[in-house]
């Protein structure tokens, strides 16, 4: 046991344990470029400020009767300290710019910097959402053009750009389905005649959560042994109480639903609508139009298919495309073009079947610019190649790993390949252990334990922007780890990761006694008062 060598304030008592990483201890706790960074609140010095602000003009206050607030408790730092704080924090992150990020179903592909440059043009970044329409014709044109690309790529009749994320798009699609049933007098949700939404058990958790949030009961559809929706089970559940089906295609097992046209026909025959979760659209963009499969409504995650950066968890953007069947139910706001060529925003729902607003203003404009820049850079020909390369890369990984790991289903896969933990059986090593050992090899792990339909899932999505060389490196590392696991070196895996800013973190303790914010050890005012 060594002495506490963190050299930084912390609320966690107790000394640091000697890790088994064989890295020598340092006086500061820093390890070369891996620097221990205190919280910004622990760097406070009263009176310091990182911006130069002018004097406050002398006026009579018009704040009314409210009492002005007291001290807030924000720390004071100068600009160089702030720059260093966030730079050091950034260095503790893995990112797509750092290396392969094969998170299945999350789609982490290259984020071109041209897109960032375009989104920062003052004509896009510095326009107010409520400026007169005459002063934002270019912004409205961009929205119309993005909508045209999305509608053309999907073969759909209408589009809304409003939803702020994929899950928000799901909500929009299910609201459209409910509106359509209601308009036909076939009341839906919350006690109406059509009370159910069918969701395959392999679906993203957002699907059942969305259906439930919109007032539906959720009924799960089992998967077949080949990883697809059980068509017979689906048909058995379809009836006059079903409002719709939510299906992901390609699905979360990385497979194309071969029976999709039959599924669509069965859903429609039952008077229900077919929602497609478009999270995996990047596998088929430019090669298949979802409208041709019989889909009524689908959301598209711009960050997944069209490369807008996800910034550590967001923002997202989840435009929704609608077939003719649901086109009248597109929510406001949307852009229309007058005969004279001028663009106009429809901001009020009016008396038609279109339903109301889902967020403030007009959608994630900054994401629209990035997505359109990516689409234009690739073009119709390049987007087809995007799907080809995404699928080729995933199948290459499947082929190179299938003898040491256990593929869950027969190929071909689409843009991601799924393994389960049968290859680890009897080794004492888990899916989680493999993931943590991969981190020490310099890779972000794949998606673990999802989809739930296989045990100990490892879902790998390389995307089209990985080179063969980086895939080969990944294969070499993963093969070596698989063989090491089989050789019985359990301790190695359970001790991983060893080379990261933090080793395995105690998530149970975090949830049991949540500490969700910093609080000063002693309130300065109280000290002064005593």
């Amino acid at each position, binding site marked *: 046991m060594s002495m506490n060598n963190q050299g930084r304030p912390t609320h966690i008592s*107790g000394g*640091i*344990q000697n890790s088994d990483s064989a890295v020598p201890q340092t006086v500061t706790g820093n390890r070369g470029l891996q620097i221990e960074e205190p919280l910004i609140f622990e760097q406070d010095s009263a009176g310091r400020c990182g911006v130069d602000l002018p004097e406050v003009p002398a*006026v009579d206050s018009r704040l009314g*009767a409210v009492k002005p607030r007291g001290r807030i*408790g924000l720390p004071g730092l100068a600009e160089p300290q702030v720059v260093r704080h966030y730079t050091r*924090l950034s*260095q*503790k*992150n893995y990112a797509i710019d750092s290396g392969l990020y094969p998170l299945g179903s999350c789609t982490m592909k290259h984020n071109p910097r*041209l897109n960032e440059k*375009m989104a920062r*043009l003052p*004509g*896009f*970044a510095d*326009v107010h*959402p*409520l*400026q007169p329409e*005459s*002063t934002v*014709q270019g*912004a409205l*044109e961009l929205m119309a053009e993005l909508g045209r690309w999305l509608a053309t790529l999907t073969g759909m009749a209408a589009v809304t750009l409003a939803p*702020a994320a994929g899950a928000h798009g799901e909500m929009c699609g299910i609201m459209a389905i409910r509106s359509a049933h209601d308009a036909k007098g076939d009341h839906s949700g919350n006690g109406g005649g059509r009370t159910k939404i069918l969701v395959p058990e392999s679906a993203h958790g957002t699907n059942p959560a969305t259906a439930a*949030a919109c007032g539906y009961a*959720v009924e799960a559809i089992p998967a077949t042994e080949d990883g697809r929706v059980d068509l017979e089970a689906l048909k058995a559940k379809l009836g006059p109480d079903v409002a719709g089906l939510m299906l992901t295609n390609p699905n979360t097992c990385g497979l*194309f639903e*071969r029976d999709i*046209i039959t599924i669509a026909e069965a859903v429609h025959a039952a008077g229900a609508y077919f929602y497609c979760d478009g999270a995996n659209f990047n596998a088929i963009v430019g090669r298949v139009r979802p409208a041709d499969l019989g889909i009524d409504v689908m959301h598209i995650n711009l960050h997944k298919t069209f490369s807008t*950066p996800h910034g*550590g*968890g967001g923002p997202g953007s989840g435009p929704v495309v609608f077939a003719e069947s649901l086109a009248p139910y597109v929510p406001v706001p949307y852009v229309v073009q007058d005969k004279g060529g001028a663009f106009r925003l429809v901001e009020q729902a009016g008396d038609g079947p279109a339903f109301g*607003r889902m*967020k*403030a203003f007009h*959608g994630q*404009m*900054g994401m629209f610019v990035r997505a359109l820049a990516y689409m234009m850079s*690739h*073009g119709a*020909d*390049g987007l087809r190649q995007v799907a080809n390369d995404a*699928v*080729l890369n995933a*199948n290459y990984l499947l082929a190179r790993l299938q003898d040491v790991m256990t593929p869950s289903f027969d190929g071909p896969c689409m843009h991601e390949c799924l393994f389960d933990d049968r290859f680890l059986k009897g080794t004492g090593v888990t899916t989680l252990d493999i993931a943590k050992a991969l981190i020490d090899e310099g890779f972000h792990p794949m998606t673990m334990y999802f989809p739930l339909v296989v045990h100990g899932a490892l879902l790998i999505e390389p995307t*089209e*922007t990985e*080179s*063969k060389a980086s895939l080969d490196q990944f294969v070499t590392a993963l093969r070596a780890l698989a063989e090491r696991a089989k050789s019985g070196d359990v301790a190695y895996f359970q001790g991983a990761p060893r080379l*990261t*800013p933090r*080793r*395995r*973190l*105690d998530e149970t303790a975090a*949830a049991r006694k949540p500490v*969700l*914010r910093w609080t000063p050890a002693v309130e300065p005012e109280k000290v002064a008062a005593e």
Partner: protein
Amino acid sequence: MRYLPLTEADRRSMLEAIGVPSVDELFRDVPEAARLSGPIEGLSNHMGELEVDRALSAMAGKNLPAGSVPSFLGAGAYRHHIPATVDHLVQRGEFLTAYTPYQPEVSQGTLQVLFEFQTQVSLLTGMDVANASMYDGATACAEAVMMANRVTRRKKAVLSGGLHPHYRDTTTTDARFIGFETVVMPPAPTGGEDLLAAVDGDTSCVVVQNPDVFGHVRDYTELGKACQAKGALLIVVVTEAVSLGLLTPPGEMGADIVAAEGQSLGNALNFGGPYVGLFAVKEKLVRQMPGRLCGQTVDADGRRGFVLTLSTREQHIRREKATSNICTNSGLCALAFSIHLSLLGEEGFTRLAEINHAKAVQLADKLAAVTGVEIVNGSFFNEFTVKLPKPAAEVVEALAQRGILGGVPASRLFGGGLDDLLIVAATETNTESDMDAFATALAEVL
């Protein structure tokens, strides 16, 4: 195509390793009838960087950037000066191109930022805890109401007429589909409203905004107490986060939930998005919160570290029983918010708020001197409403022709009605000569 690293030789050797003759073979599960044989028609083919830059710059050039002219638009989106440092740091690839921090050992940067962000939001709002951000203020407001419904097991929300109409509409859209009732008070641009009269035993919450959409600054302390007595929660909405530098924080007024828009710190106008929703609650409500939470813990060596926590509330575990269907946050926008606030610090943030208020007072005095213009507000922070002798939409259009973005007509937000009201904001970005130009132009067009 510069984003695609595979060469033709790579593709051939990979197909060989897979054991298929062509990539088309890998799409064999797609029904024949739905397979496209070539690129989709109606879309252009790939373009080089220069061509894309040219095409998009031409579109951007058709817009009038707010910063290029005297601009006084607010109503939920505010133009503030963003220090150069903010955007520079946000663009570091390790922040920009990271995903949700599912692997905490290699995501401590994002996680510590979120922990600091949660602390900052708690401090600004005067609440116990905050989450790691929401899509925007309007969706945060709707989620706050849904949360109040869960907590109180009541299903009626009372919405103030001073609530931003987009927030109101977002909430009523959800109400219609999710199945709860809303009582929407009529807009009261000049006076108060009797919210308590609408509260009964079925009311889950009362939603108010401060400053309200017309700019009035209000004290909700008494309302908070009255709500508590009736078993309803008080939800306070804030659309201008800078006001929290000067006004009594919602937590001190007795708010149970605060739903706010954080765009004003670190985030550009972006024509309406992406923005950053702030969401803060009293401690006892933590487990009913929507969205993501970051928590402090220790690693295997006993060192402080951070993880996403309380995920048993969330959709990826609870599926149809989750507190909401949200599975993302506004991470990068929250980072920008956090950096800007760190640069400002206690002194800077307070002073920024004071400057904003003083600028608005100066503007109000200048506009009040224009014949026919009447200031509606008795109190305001950096935004207020003026009554005009002509429809405000016409006035705004005429001002735009003169190169001035002169505020938001109330009719734009309320969809008709209140035609003579114009909502005007001033921030630290407005100079005295901007204000003079506005007052002069306004006198000309009236």
